[in-house]
């Protein structure tokens, strides 16, 4: 059933908790070493930059090696032949993938990710070309979903679970639109299904092998649940489906306004209570989107004042929270868990946001040559 050695995957996760305990002084160095012996694993586990490189170059190699055959055989005119070859490529990619996982102990190392994604891509386009790329629109996501589920069960890849989730809801969306009552009930169908997805995934606990995939699905489910109850999304989608422009008031609008403002706060509350970081982040994003939703229909003040006041409030709230949660309260803490890693990235982003613009285009190298595109009096 499972492509990767499940015990090793579990041990990899356990190792991380041992290191955390050691850093917090809960276990000693000797104990840490003994613990690590207990949970031995032997995955090929390179540096992140190496993984990126492996993914990139494996991807290029795969596309050109499949390109050789397609060019050699001169197909492309006949969809059936092309489909056969694509399916063969897909099978080959899976064989190579399985072989490498076994022989080289790969686990999300870039090589196996690239092989898996291209196998899925080949199979999908291959099957589509059997049908001459001519299907009813909701069958595309359904077909994709049917292909992804076995891949998800076997490889537990987070991106595959993302794809499966998206194609499922895309299918529901397109399929409901074929019925008139489906169109009307669409928001409620989406909300029910996303809630179901969330709770089903939650109830399947304690399988470390699928932990990342489950995390992706739960986070996406939270997002879809909020968005399908959001007034802006419902109203604009409704207008789009019924070809109205500009959008008109929707029935039951009160319910959607309540959802718009209630759901993010429920996320925040439950996120803090159950220690779910993804719910907290979705709650924060949701509040932002709710404010945007309100402003789209009821203009309270001009944009510049909204930005100024909103910015000031945001700064005030975040500074207050950083001070307030310094000592943990309500399961929340404003102290960093791991500093180093993201901070490096932050510095790069700072330079991007606040770059020295003083010489933008007005000054080219070579002393007095102050000409060029932007030298129109503005500095």
């Amino acid at each position: 059933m499972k492509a990767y050695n499940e015990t090793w995957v579990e041990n990899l996760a356990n190792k991380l908790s041992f290191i955390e305990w050691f850093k917090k002084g809960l276990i000693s160095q000797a104990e840490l070493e003994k613990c690590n012996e207990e949970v031995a694993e032997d995955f090929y586990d390179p540096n992140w930059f190496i993984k990126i490189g492996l993914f990139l170059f494996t991807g290029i190699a795969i596309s050109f090696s499949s390109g050789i055959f397609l060019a050699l055989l001169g197909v492309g005119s006949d969809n059936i032949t092309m489909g056969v070859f694509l399916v063969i490529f897909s099978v080959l990619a899976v064989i190579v993938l399985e072989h490498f996982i076994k022989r080289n102990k790969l686990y999300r190392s870039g090589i196996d990710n690239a092989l898996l994604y291209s196998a899925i891509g080949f199979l999908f386009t291959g099957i589509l070309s059997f049908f001459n790329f001519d299907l009813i629109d909701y069958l595309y996501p359904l077909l994709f979903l049917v292909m992804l589920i076995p891949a998800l069960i076997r490889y537990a890849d987070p991106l595959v679970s993302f794809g499966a989730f998206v194609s499922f809801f895309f299918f529901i969306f397109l399929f409901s639109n074929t019925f008139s009552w489906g169109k009307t009930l669409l928001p409620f169908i989406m909300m029910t299904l996303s809630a179901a997805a969330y709770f089903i995934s939650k109830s399947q606990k304690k399988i470390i092998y699928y932990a990342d995939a489950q995390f992706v699905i739960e986070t996406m489910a939270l997002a879809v649940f909020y968005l399908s109850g959001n007034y802006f999304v419902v109203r604009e989608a409704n207008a789009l489906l019924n070809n109205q422009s500009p959008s008109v008031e929707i029935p039951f609008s009160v319910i959607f306004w309540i959802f718009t403002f209630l759901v993010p706060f429920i996320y925040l509350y439950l996120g803090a209570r159950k220690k779910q970081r993804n719910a907290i982040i979705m709650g924060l994003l949701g509040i932002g989107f709710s404010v945007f939703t309100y402003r789209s229909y009821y203009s309270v003040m001009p944009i510049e004042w909204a930005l100024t006041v909103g910015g000031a409030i945001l700064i005030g709230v975040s500074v207050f929270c950083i001070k307030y949660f310094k000592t943990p309260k309500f399961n929340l803490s404003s102290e960093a868990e791991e500093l180093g890693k993201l901070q490096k990235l932050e510095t790069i982003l700072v330079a991007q946001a606040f770059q020295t613009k003083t010489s933008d285009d007005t000054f080219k190298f070579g002393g007095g040559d102050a000409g060029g595109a932007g030298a129109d009096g503005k500095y």
Partner: protein
Amino acid sequence: MHTLLDRLLEKNIISSEKASQIIAYENQKPVSIFWELRSLLYLGISCLGGGLGILIYQNIDSIGHSVLIGFIAIFCLVCFWYSYKHRTPFTWEEVKSASFLSEYSLLGACVLFLVLEGYLQYQYNFFGERYGLATFIPAVLFFGVSYFFDHRGILSMAITAAGSWLGLSIAPISLFKTFDIITNDLVYTGIAFGVLLVLIGWLSEWKDKKKHFAFTYYFFGANVAFISTLTALFSFDWKFIHLLLLLAMSAVAIFHARQTKSYLLLLMGIIYGYIGFTYYVFSNFNFDQYLFFSFFYFMISCGAVVYFLFNVKSILGISKSKNV
């Protein structure tokens, strides 16, 4: 979690006391919302800045330029003063416990300084035709500030300011736009500047002076150097010489990974080196008639790169220690 602890208890690896401590820790462990709050703060600053900017722009006639410049100058000084008051004593090591407010006020002060400078030039033509000075001053100031207060964000601002002084705009995204108008001087300056930055980064690592600044130097330096060299390879004659230069730089990057076990430079070296090498191959051999060979080229060369990356530790003779 409990099954894991039970297993450890059973094998007598940890005592039952410790196990209950660990359970207690896991139960009370808070969720860290450090990055969420930080992002909110950045968002707030951007909104406030943008909103104020529009407001001032609309009401400039009633406010008056000199009043505004005065305000910006005062704010800038207040921010500097606040950070100075809350500074930690200077050290060549990384400062761990800097208060976050002084960090942000320092950032604010530096951004305001740039705004002030631009404003003065726009309104009063303060620097006249000496554009170089307008970028040279912030570069020097920011380098000093970043070392004194130990602020990596300001360091990257200093590097971009120094780049603009040389005529390059080197913030990560605009880096690719720099070479729209290609001149010999600009490209070779870029190469020299990039190499210099990498050297500084290497020195700070080697001499253990602000070691944690090395990543920022490497990131900017290597990108500038590689992109400049690629531009030279694409647009100038003497292609073989430029290719050799590029490959030499890639080799240095790979060698650096062997010394330090950090792989950022290695990845950059391989990607940029591969692009340059492929360009050279294709510009010298006419593949139009032999389409298959170009496919084979990519297949074999990418396979070789994958093989190299996969076995990089044993090829470079780096001891096999797992990095978690």
